């Protein structure tokens, strides 16, 4: 896992003013300033706003809870350690999400190279693992069942809220390819969820 500071850079344009993770831009800036002072409450605020989406996205990309935990946890810790270098005029959420997305994609590619695709992960989901935090297990299973190329762009777009241009840069494909994968993935999900 690449934890070099130079690998943790802002990788996209400033997004709109829509609150990310339930935080307004102003509240998020205040939380970043607080965390820089060592304020645990401020850190908790950033964590509550951004870690859940990071974990869910990592899980859906890699389809392994332990790996997803490592990716989301290490991504957040890397962000905390790099706070001093963080450009505070930028929103924190997209910065963190880009870190996590890059790590999850790298991990997925490494697994593919090692031919360690976890067939059991889908069986696990299809079996309907009891979870009090799974209000939409059908949707989770449907996302996890998408082909990897579609799954990654759908997760990056709709869980991590990256733009198609940001996804294209991360995945290394043209933006048009991102859009077509998104369209196919969402079409499949719509069919599966409506069943």
């Amino acid at each position, binding site marked *: 896992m690449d934890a070099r500071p130079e690998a943790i850079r802002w990788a996209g344009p400033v997004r709109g003013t829509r609150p990310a993770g339930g935080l307004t831009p102003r509240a998020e800036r205040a939380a970043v300033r607080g965390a820089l002072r060592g304020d645990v409450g401020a850190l*908790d605020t950033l964590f509550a706003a951004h870690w859940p989406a990071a974990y869910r996205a990592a899980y*859906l990309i890699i389809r392994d809870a332990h790996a997803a935990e490592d990716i989301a946890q290490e991504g*957040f810790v890397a962000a905390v350690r790099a706070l001093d270098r963080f450009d505070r005029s930028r929103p924190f959420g997209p910065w963190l999400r880009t870190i996590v997305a890059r790590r999850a994609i790298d991990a997925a590619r490494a697994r593919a190279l090692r031919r360690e695709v976890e067939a059991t992960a889908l069986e696990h989901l299809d079996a309907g693992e009891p979870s009090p935090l*799974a*209000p939409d297990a059908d949707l989770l299973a449907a996302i996890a069942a998408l082909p990897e190329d579609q799954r990654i762009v759908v997760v990056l777009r709709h869980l991590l809220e990256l733009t198609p241009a940001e996804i294209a840069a991360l995945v290394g494909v043209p933006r048009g390819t991102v859009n077509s994968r998104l369209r196919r993935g969402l079409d499949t999900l719509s069919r599966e969820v409506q069943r």
Partner: protein
Amino acid sequence: MSAPPFDRVRAPGEEEARRRALAVARAALAERPAVARSAPDVRPSPWRSG
């Protein structure tokens, strides 16, 4: 292109992972070097003698 309700998705193991990750993040914050924090200016006071 309509999207399913992604905000309803919860991943297996999320709650336990969240608790562990928060503890690790707090530890990482505590470990940050004091000089790196945006602390108030602590340069020597002009009133300090010696």
